[in-house]
């Protein structure tokens, strides 16, 4: 499998994400600059954490207009897996690939610490390797991670089982303790915690490994399915 890790001016978790993918899955992970316009060659796309364009206007607001985001949208529409971590999540909401918005933490603190997440949905390509209701340990590092959405959107997220993770103890004031959400099709996940920082014993948690493994397995199965259908048709 071949992963694209998008690099915006100001991304700072790009190398961490690529290393985690290589370490955990053994796959290729390529750093792709924000002016790329074609991502059709990749099996999965990761929007990493950081401060794209300095986050001067709003988090993720300027990155949304990068040429590569149009390519991300096209691939997402095709059903390709897109994972947005932290600033990547903010870019996904600003570009309307995910609903809602991420605002300054209600406590005004920049929180950098290990958090406990509750797995709310294990029926997605990102979470299949977790057990529903399981508590996992993934660190956060953000000042603007308070997820907000209007009541209609929240109802849609709940009825569609699109809340993937919630915080056990809310660190930022997110509505309904939401830490990560899926799009309607289930192939786009945005989350504030950093799974790439929980993939080695010395990182104090390896709970992030299963997210990358789960994605890897899903892509492999999807590819095998396409292959099988292809040969059946020929």
């Amino acid at each position, binding site marked *: 499998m071949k992963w694209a890790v998008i690099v915006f001016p100001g991304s700072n978790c790009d190398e961490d994400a690529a290393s985690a993918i290589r370490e955990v899955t053994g796959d290729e992970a390529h750093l792709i600059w924000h002016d790329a316009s074609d991502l059709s060659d990749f099996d999965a796309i990761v929007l990493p954490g950081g401060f794209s364009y300095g986050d001067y*206007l*709003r988090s993720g*607001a300027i990155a949304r*207009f990068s040429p590569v985001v149009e390519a991300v949208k096209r691939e997402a529409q095709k059903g390709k897996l897109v994972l947005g971590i932290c600033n990547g999540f903010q870019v996904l*909401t*600003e570009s309307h690939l995910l*609903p*809602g*918005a991420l*605002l*300054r*933490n*209600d*406590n*005004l603190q920049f929180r950098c610490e290990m958090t406990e997440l509750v797995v709310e949905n294990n029926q997605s390509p990102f979470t299949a390797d977790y057990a529903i209701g399981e508590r996992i340990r993934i660190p956060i590092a953000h000042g603007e991670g308070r997820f*907000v*959405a209007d009541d209609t959107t929240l109802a849609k997220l709940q009825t569609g089982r699109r809340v993937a993770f919630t915080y056990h103890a809310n660190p930022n*004031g997110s509505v309904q303790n939401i830490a990560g959400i899926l799009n309607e099709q289930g192939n786009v996940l945005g989350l504030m915690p950093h799974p790439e920082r929980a993939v080695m014993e010395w990182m104090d948690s390896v709970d992030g490994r299963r997210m990358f493994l789960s994605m890897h397995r899903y892509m492999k199965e999807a590819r095998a399915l396409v292959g099988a259908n292809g040969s059946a048709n020929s």
Partner: protein
Amino acid sequence: MKTYEVEVRIWLKPSVFDPQGHAVEQALHTLGYAEASDLRIGKYMHLTVQSTSLSEAQMRVEEMCERVLSNPVMETYAYTLKEVALS
């Protein structure tokens, strides 16, 4: 071409909690200004716009606010335009 001076103000929607505004309001209360309430912190932007007419300039500024300067999911905005004489 005419030149317009534009002032844009952006706030979080009233339904969205503004932690910065809340913290500053608390500080005012602590300092004895009990009469202060509903304090919200927003953003102020100033720019100039070249355009053939006021209505054209308004349309473009409206678009900038909707598309880039504010996030309509959580923010509201207001703006004023003033024609400036070029020296």
